[in-house]
């Protein structure tokens, strides 16, 4: 390592990469297609503004035999809100969706749509639109008949349902495929048809169960923005189930992180990313390194100093719901993009270690640093900053507010 060179990443510049890319990407998409938006305006007017309903889930419990899939979940959705249920598979998010749709009967708790209790209402009486992961288009009907299906079930006149179905198809940018069969369309097109079918009857709530899971990455990202735009234009209330955190961060007004059948944290994407309520959320959302230690002393408000087993000390901020006293064991979560690497120096008090791996991914270079106690800490340096050679000793520096200390069991 060249003497005197400061290896660093600015804590601010790399922060909240997902939020930043979301804004710029949406701006680009909107700017790139000015014509499409105006073309869709007429269709939009024809479908009318769909003010979504307010949803309230109170203490929802669902058991499958001995397995408790949902363990008392309470959630509210404002009218017109886009809420993402984010969690690993088996966390109960799809079960909540199925209970809302009425395909599963809740074991306990209540579900309200605009203060109407729908807990035991059959699915066909709920007025909820749903988009499935595998599209679930009717293979024996044309695209137009698929989209018009919910209107047909509501006994609307033929001319009206055809006009509305065509408007919905235009809204999802699929004019001209109305007479085709679903299997003649690509996966992305099929999912647009499914979306048109789910909004054409102005549902009180739109449920989406990993709707982009079967599509490739590029298509997924462009559809994310389209769905988000459409939802905002229509004012539909959306509950969106996904295990893809990027998708949730990009699309949702608020995210509810699920784990083991319970909601871990609900909040706007930025809040969840910046202030995770516990180590599960910190770990699940974005990249996080964990360092275990003991609270050495407490400062003003939430400031504290944490001592590692090896005797190193560093500044951190207390987080999470638990009361923490001096001497309590904590687990400290640090975002890799908030870590600054400095050349090793004798008077450094905080964590230090040796670079054991450096992985370049285009936008940044991820460094793995092994501390003297054997803990692995990740540091992400933005592209342009030269990577630190493997084997070099470095000091790890961060803002105290970027290291969030959660109480852990001893």
């Amino acid at each position, binding site marked *: 390592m060249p003497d005197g060179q400061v290896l660093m990443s600015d804590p601010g510049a790399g922060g909240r990469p997902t939020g930043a890319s979301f804004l710029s990407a949406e701006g680009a998409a909107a700017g790139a297609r000015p014509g499409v938006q105006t073309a869709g305006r007429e269709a939009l007017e024809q479908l009318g503004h769909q003010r979504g309903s307010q949803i309230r889930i109170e203490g929802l419990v669902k058991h499958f035999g001995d397995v408790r899939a949902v363990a008392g979940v309470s959630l509210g959705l404002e009218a017109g809100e886009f809420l993402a249920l984010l969690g690993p598979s088996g966390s109960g998010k799809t079960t909540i969706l199925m209970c809302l*749709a*009425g*395909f599963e009967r809740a074991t306990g708790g209540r579900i309200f749509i605009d203060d109407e209790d729908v807990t035991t209402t*059959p*699915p*066909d009486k*709920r*007025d*909820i*639109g*749903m988009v*499935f992961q*595998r599209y*679930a288009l*009717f*293979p*024996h009907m044309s695209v137009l008949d698929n989209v018009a*299906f*919910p209107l047909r*079930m*509501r006994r609307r006149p033929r001319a009206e349902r055809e006009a509305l179905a065509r408007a919905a198809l235009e809204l999802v940018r699929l004019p001209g495929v109305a007479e085709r*069969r*679903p*299997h003649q369309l690509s996966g992305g097109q099929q999912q647009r048809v499914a979306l048109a*079918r*789910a909004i054409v*009857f102005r549902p009180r709530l739109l449920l989406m169960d990993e709707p982009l899971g079967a599509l490739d990455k590029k298509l997924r990202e462009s559809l994310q923005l389209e769905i988000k735009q459409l939802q905002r234009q229509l004012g539909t209330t959306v509950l969106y189930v996904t295990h893809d955190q990027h998708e949730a961060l990009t699309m949702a007004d608020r995210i509810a992180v699920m784990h083991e059948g319970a909601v871990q944290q609900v909040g706007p994407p930025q809040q969840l990313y910046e202030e995770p309520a516990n180590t599960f959320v910190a770990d699940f959302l974005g990249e996080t390194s964990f360092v275990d230690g003991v609270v050495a002393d407490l400062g003003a408000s939430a400031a504290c100093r944490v001592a590692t087993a090896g005797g190193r000390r560093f500044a951190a901020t207390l987080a999470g719901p638990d009361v923490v006293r001096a001497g309590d064991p904590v687990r400290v979560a640090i975002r890799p993009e908030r870590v600054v690497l400095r050349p090793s120096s004798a008077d450094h008090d905080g964590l230090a270690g040796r670079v054991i791996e450096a992985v370049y991914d285009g936008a940044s270079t991820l460094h793995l640093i092994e501390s003297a106690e054997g803990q692995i800490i990740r540091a992400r340096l933005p592209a342009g900053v030269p990577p630190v050679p493997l084997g070099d000793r470095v000091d790890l520096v961060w803002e105290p507010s970027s290291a969030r200390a959660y109480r852990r069991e001893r």
Partner: protein
Amino acid sequence: MAAAQAGRGSRSARVYGPSLTAVCLAPMTVLLGVLFYLPVGAFLARSFLVDGFSTDVYADLASRPIFLLIFLRTFRTGIIVTLVALVLAYPLAYAMARARPIVAGVATAIVLLPLWTSVLVRSYAWTVLLDDRGVINDILVGSGLLHAPLRILYTETAVWIGMVHILLPLMVLPIYSALRAIPTDLPQAASGLGASPRAVLRHVVLPLSLPGVFAGVVIVFISALGFFVTPAILGGPKTLMISTLITQQATSLLDWPVASAIALVLLVITMAIVMAVGRSLSIERLLSI
């Protein structure tokens, strides 16, 4: 270009090469050719070979109303048996498709069980049930519901009952497999979009199970046309069906040309039906994914 060439020829010819395919097909081709097609062809040809080539036998057939009557009776029986089997089989297949795996497995075994029993045994079992002094009449008369026993055995009704029972599995199984092939999210999507349970059945489940229904109808109808044992046992001499008639002509009356002519007419009509339905089946295939 290469793809177009590969597309020609059978799939096995592409995978195994033409010579190996020929070797694999040869034993069965020889067996069928020598032991089946040749004798059947020779038998069918006899209808045209009475003192040299002639079609007199067919003119003779057409002039005797009894043959027309038996043909009509056979087709009427085929249609009735097929319809009754369909009406009985669809709800059963539907219930099986919706049942839990264990229940569905047991139901499948129960449906299949009769297939493993001899048709002869099952037909004679029905004579025990349907006879004037059989189990059913004993119950009806014994309980005072009827004064005199109901005449069922040796009527067309007995034939219908026996044939429906014997052919039912052949109707249930294709419908069951078609219903099972419907992805669960399709009925779910339909009901979520506002379709009542009845509407889900009518607009989604029923249309998507049609290929199975067609398959079952074709199999049962064609089997019914050629049924021999059950009509012979349960129908008695008064309700002759085509296959019984053929046997009678060939073995009792030794009138081989007539037997051959009847068989050929039956074969032609059956093949016409298969081809007609086959065309609609391929349309059905277009509808599925």
